[in-house]
């Protein structure tokens, strides 16, 4: 982070993770980027995903839509799963599909199965942004699920501020720094004018106040 003061980051993290009010949930830590010299009406879209080194949202529930091989693997790993037959039983019933879509935060689907998803489920997972990520037999289901948990979406819309989840209050300082460093460098590299497009950087927990990094 060429322009960000390392000690400012550590101070912010320390303040944010210092036990204050006890919450009954683990607060997410968000990086807020204020942009300048960028016009959302004219400039190219700023949208995509970043995979962070440390999982910022460990509680993301993932369901495997698996072929026989992956269903066995999921069972052994203690992961939730649905087989082709389970999906066929839904009979393309919209209410049941909606229920399935609501039950989990994300889906993995065996490569062999993913081409059948439109026929089995219709567009039921599209609108909620949960169309499955393909997984091959060579890949580990738990690794792939963690990959999904470590991937965050970002998109700048009309306002010149972007919020990106970079961690949670129970992560270590080193983990948070790694995530913040990667996020900042990656997002800045996407901007046409790089640091000239960045007005400010703040770090904040869900319920806490923002701390300025830049």
């Amino acid at each position, binding site marked *: 982070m060429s322009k960000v003061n390392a000690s400012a980051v550590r101070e912010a993290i320390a303040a944010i993770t210092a036990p204050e009010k006890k919450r009954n949930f683990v607060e997410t830590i968000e990086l807020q980027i204020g942009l300048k010299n960028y016009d959302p*009406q*004219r*400039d*190219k*879209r*700023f*949208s*995509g*995903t970043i995979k962070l080194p440390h999982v910022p949202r460990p509680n993301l529930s993932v369901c495997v839509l698996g072929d026989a091989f992956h269903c066995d693997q999921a069972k052994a790993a203690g992961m939730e799963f649905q087989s082709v037959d389970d999906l066929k039983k839904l009979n*393309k019933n*919209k209410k049941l599909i909606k229920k399935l879509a609501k039950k989990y935060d994300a889906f993995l689907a065996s490569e062999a199965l*993913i*081409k059948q*998803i*439109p026929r089995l489920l*219709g*567009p*039921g997972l*599209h*609108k*909620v*942004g949960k*169309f*499955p*990520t*393909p997984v091959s037999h060579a890949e580990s289901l738990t690794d792939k699920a963690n990959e999904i948990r470590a*991937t965050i*979406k970002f*998109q700048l*819309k009309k306002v010149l501020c972007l919020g990106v989840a970079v961690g949670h209050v129970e992560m270590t300082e080193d983990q948070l720094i790694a995530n913040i460093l990667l996020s900042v460098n990656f997002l800045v590299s*996407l901007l*046409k004018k790089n640091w000239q497009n960045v007005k400010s950087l703040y770090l904040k927990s869900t319920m806490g106040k923002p701390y300025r990094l830049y």
Partner: protein
Amino acid sequence: MANIDFGFKDQYVFDVTANSQYVIASASDQLVRLYDANSLQPVTSLAFHQKRISKMKLYNDQYLFTASEDGKLARWDLRSQSTAPAQVFQYTRPLSAFDVNCNDTMAVAGTLNEEFVQTAELAFFDTRQSSLLHKFEESHGDDVTDIQCHPSIPSQLISCSTDGLVNSYDVKDFDEDEDILAVINSGSSVSKAGYFGPDANYMFYLTHLETFALYTLDGDLVCDYGQLKNIEGVDYAIDCLFDQTTSRLYLATGNNNGDVSLFHVNINELQRCQVLSGGHTDVVRSIYWNHTSQSILTGGEDGKMCAWQAVQ
């Protein structure tokens, strides 16, 4: 290389195209400008849209279409002297993408996802009546960024979105639950997608993170070229273009200095075939390539449109 400077230093050129009479550009001031194809002298401006022109496409030598965030899709007759649209399709949501099918019976427009509505729509219009045929409200969870109709099958099309999906459809019966043929999840945010191949059996997509991949229409990966910024002199993709006559696929890319690099797209290899430099000085947003005349047009954020000759 000829350089058409708009003289509007603060405007961006968005889309560029040309027919036999005119060279045409849409810009960030909501105007579509027509220039004489031979002299490159300005002929007229089409003022109609009240909000950003999200896309402009030439349908054939006679018709031009523009779609805008003002909710309108307009058809322009380039052979008439009128500066008003020949036909307007009105929709209730801002339009961010569109295409017209191969036999000019249907126009499909995609919308932005707006906070209060939380959905992006695909609107299907009957071009013979200007009426709405149907709409799909579930196929995308976020802004529709591109739509391409099949080159020979009037009921088939591809759409893509910032939700990361590329969907291909056959809408013979407008049943959203049954009409999706295949879905590719890019895992990112898709900016462009389209058909290619002599029989249009393949599709490509480009993401906002500047990655590029080719798939079969069924959804099997053909080649993933990964991060285009890893190529020397490339900062972003402009477009992917298929030349029907030679069956060659090209990738047009640019850098932040305004240099354009054109690549042959081969399996597992992008082969640079031409560089267009000395024209633009800022991000290039669009390219038009006429493979018959081998002329190329580019438009960019420097407010310029440049005309080039392709090397063969």
